[in-house]
């Protein structure tokens, strides 16, 4: 009889199960509502920024603020494009970010591989050196670096911007970590026994296996340069050499500038970078997530 009861639940037990399930559904609904509100609050400033870009000065003042402009105008955009070399700044930022990404991916791939697979004492000492300086924030040493750029004669140029963004300690750790975990020694040894040269091994075996990690690193490096502020601020001081961040920041200090135009300029920058992020989200999340896993 007892065994029968455990197999066949009584009406009471069924009701209890339904009640629990309903309670769980209610909890989940409450959590979803809360998270939805948080998500909207996080996005709202950006949504308004884009909306404001299309508003007339009169509508900017209206309360409550509208999300879809009543009579959308592109006057703000044409005014900004007429007043500032906005497209030039965006071009500078793209060139800077792309070159920095290439440099960081290249240096990190090579150094990460060597530190991961060539355990000589010299290499360990060098790696310790990289590790020790990784915690020093860029802001601490950017002033001497500025004077180095100055003596090289590359202030106000793409190369000057690039000087601060050629290597990334985290990129080296990321690649090293991946090399250790996902490239077995046996594979490399087998290639060596078959007579493969070290360079061939690096380009034909190691790099293809690191594609995922390098993709994540590339996205991180690109956004790091794209959003850089302090370094471009001191290195690029002529209007034509500004990056978009510096150009916008200085543009907004002029006191004749109104918020509609600022919003238009900001939206021009924001929309492509948000789209890019949404497209590359997986890579990005993978890269950032691995920053927290360096135990």
């Amino acid at each position, binding site marked *: 009889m007892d065994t029968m009861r455990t197999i066949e639940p009584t009406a009471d037990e069924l009701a209890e199960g339904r009640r629990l399930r309903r309670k769980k559904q209610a*909890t989940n609904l409450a*959590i979803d509502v*809360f*998270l*939805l509100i948080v*998500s909207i609050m*996080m996005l709202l*400033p*950006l949504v308004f*920024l884009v909306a404001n870009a299309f508003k007339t000065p009169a509508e900017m003042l209206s*309360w*409550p*603020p509208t999300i879809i402009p009543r009579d959308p105008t592109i006057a703000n955009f044409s005014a900004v494009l007429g007043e500032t070399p906005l497209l030039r700044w965006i071009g500078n930022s793209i060139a800077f970010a792309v070159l920095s990404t290439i440099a960081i991916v290249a*240096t990190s791939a*090579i*150094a990460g*591989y060597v530190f991961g697979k*060539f355990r000589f004492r010299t*290499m360990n000492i*060098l790696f310790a050196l990289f590790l020790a*300086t990784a*915690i*020093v*924030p*860029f*802001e*601490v*040493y*950017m*002033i*001497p*670096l500025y004077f180095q750029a100055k003596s090289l004669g590359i202030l106000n140029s793409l190369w000057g911007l690039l*000087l601060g963004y*050629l290597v990334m300690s985290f990129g080296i750790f990321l690649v090293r970590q991946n090399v250790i975990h996902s490239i077995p020694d046996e594979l490399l040894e087998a290639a060596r026994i078959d007579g493969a040269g*070290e360079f061939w091994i690096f380009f034909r075996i190691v790099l293809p296996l690191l594609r995922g990690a390098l993709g994540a690193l590339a996205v991180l490096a690109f*956004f790091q340069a794209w959003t850089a*502020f*302090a370094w471009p601020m001191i290195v690029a001081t002529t209007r034509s050499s500004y990056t*978009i*961040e510096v150009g916008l*920041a200085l543009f*907004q*200090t*002029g006191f004749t500038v109104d*918020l509609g135009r*600022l*919003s238009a300029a*900001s*939206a021009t*920058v*924001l929309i492509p*970078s948000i789209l890019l*992020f949404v497209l590359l*989200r997986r890579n*990005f*999340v993978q890269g*950032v*997530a691995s920053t*927290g*896993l360096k135990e």
Partner: protein
Amino acid sequence: MLKRKRFIFAMLAILPTLAIFAYVRLYPIADTLRLSLYQWNILSKNKPFIGLANFRELMGDHLFLDALINTTIIAFGVLALTIPMALVIAALIFHRTRSRMAGFYETAVFIPHVVSLVPAAMAWKWIFDARLGPLNALLDFFGIPMQSWLFDPVLSVICIIVLCSWQALGYAVLIYLVGFKNLPVSLYEAAKLDGASGRQSFWHLSIPMLKPITLYVSVVTLVSGFNVYAQAFVLASDAQGAPGRQVRVLVLDMLENSFRNYRVGYAASEAVVLLVIVLALTLIQFSMLREKGKA
């Protein structure tokens, strides 16, 4: 012989990266330390060694102390806002991992972290704007007196904390999510069998188990808080185009001493103070982690 060949390859491969690293990181870090002991005015030819005189002067420099206090308040303010919120949001997103909305929540919370700093700050500049901003309109709607958010020394610090937290939150949530995904499921099942509610598991299981993650995120948040610059530059610049008059932060004070007052040695000593703060925070993190390992 083979080992020797491999060593030569490793050295050759690491050499370009090492050279770049030495030039753009090791040298300027060393130079910062060296310059902090010199009195170097860009305009004058000689650069006398003055020992710790720069640091002694810093201790009595009102502008510097002002910057140090503001920066510390901002860094800890961001920490206090970000960590608890990130922990709760990450726990809830993790709870809803299997729902279709999880990806949206994650993306929405994370977008403010990746978008360009200056355009995003511009959105907040509008929100806080005394005349046009929705914040004051909202206050007015409820009959609360309007505030000049960005022109009051106390309120503008709060505005910067809000902006920085909005940006830092996504990163913290993402790292916490990684932490939640790595927690052992069996432990939660055991707790559930023992009759623990979701809330009890959160307090007595998740929070203690995530302590290393909390420490890591806290230090990262504090360090980036101490390096705050762009946010203060955009939000707290006044109409005359003299940025940072309202809220002086460390990086701004440093750059001003170096490039406006031409006192490079003095600015370097400020950079050393920043470095010491960052090192101290990192040491605290490591020693707390070790303590946890012993227990």
